[in-house]
């Protein structure tokens, strides 16, 4: 039900998510921010029930801060993604986190990257991705439109196409979307 999408462009990564927090037939909130900022250059878009998403996000965030304090180093996006996957995998056969994640980050050495993780602890580095019902609608748009080295305007246009598609064809009404971008200058909202 939550829509989370991400796309990698030339030197940046955009993560977009809808803003409706809802369960069953009730909408709690129309301006929910589902994209967590983990340290200055990683974005984590999450889908799932708030209990698990906030629990998991805070756990990862605090562990990453601890790592930074202890080691005077920031974790790379690749390391962070694998750390998250390891946590999801360990919890899977005890008390799973029902959260699907798109981790977008920018590293000086590796550039922008996007990782697709799901609640069964899959992990894959991707150029674009989507979670939830939305993936049925938007992945085909990404497949057709994505190319290497997208500019910000091009990426924005693709995301807009996806949002338009969802608002036309997806059963659930998701009027508002939040877009965040991470690049060499850090994180900002679009």
């Amino acid at each position: 039900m939550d829509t989370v999408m991400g796309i990698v462009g030339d030197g940046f990564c955009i993560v977009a998510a809808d803003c409706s927090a809802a369960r069953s037939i009730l909408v709690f909130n129309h301006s929910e921010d589902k994209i967590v900022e983990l340290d200055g250059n990683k974005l984590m878009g999450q889908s799932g029930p708030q209990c698990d998403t906030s629990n998991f996000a805070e756990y990862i965030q605090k562990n990453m801060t601890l790592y930074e304090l202890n080691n005077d180093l920031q974790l790379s996006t690749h390391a962070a993604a694998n750390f998250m996957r390891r946590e999801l995998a360990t919890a899977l056969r005890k008390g799973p986190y029902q959260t699907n994640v798109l981790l977008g980050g920018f590293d000086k050495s590796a550039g922008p990257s996007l990782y697709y993780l799901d609640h069964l602890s899959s992990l894959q580095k991707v150029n674009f991705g989507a979670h939830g019902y939305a993936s049925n609608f938007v992945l085909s748009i990404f497949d057709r439109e994505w190319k290497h080295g997208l500019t910000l305007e091009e990426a924005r246009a693709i995301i807009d196409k996806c949002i338009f598609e969802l608002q036309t064809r997806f059963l659930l009404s998701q009027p508002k979307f939040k877009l965040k971008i991470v690049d060499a200058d850090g994180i900002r909202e679009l």
Partner: protein
Amino acid sequence: MARRYDSSTTTFSPEGRLHQVEYAIEAINNAGTAVGILAKDGIVLAGEKQKLSGLLAPPKGSEKMYKLDEHVTSVVAGLTADANILINTARVAAQRYIYTYQEPMPVEQMVKRVCNYKQSYTQFGGLRPFGVAFLFAGWDEHYGYQLYMSDPSGNYSGWKATCIGQNNQAGKSLLKNEYDESVGVDEALKLAVKVLVKTMDATSASADKLEFCVLTREGDKVTLAPPRAHMPWSSPATHLSWCVPALPLVAPSASSAYCQGRRSRRSSMK
């Protein structure tokens, strides 16, 4: 006076010293010398093999050099049995890190992990400290080539060139005078030999008592290897000529046995 305060590792003396830790450091000063030198394109580690008896079977591996992970190696001075425990701790820590992060463990973190473990034996449990000092040499993408020394107290520090074990003061003073951080690995190897020759007894210095490990990078990969044949040992005799006449460095039995031992291990690991 120190007698009253030195039997328990976990008690300070009135002067504020931990005698057990200091005694452990003393134990290392009887061990074979080890040298580490940071060059601009790699790190050289060298060690003196102390031959205890002619009846000893030739070692399968090395008693001084230990590979901790693909990008970190170490040389040991002190009690070998104690060293084995710590080496294992370091290796497990390195693999655990890759298990979690899918990336090689930054060198300083590995050193810190071993040192924190050593420190716990100076503060609680009533067990004696480890009688080992390490020289850790490694490369990571954060800080490049790094050389660290750690001692039984659990302290560690980064060095450009240093020396542990027997006669390390003599070695360190030589390094202070002659170390040049702009040289490459080849020059650093020659300096390492010079240091070891100075710290060993002049009469007993010979090629089969030395072993080396050179850490460099080829492209993206860190390589740990003994000095290779192509390295310009143009007049090897000159490096040892003042102590052991006409003994070339790379050729003889034990150092090539070391080379072969390590080479075959490395190739079998692939």
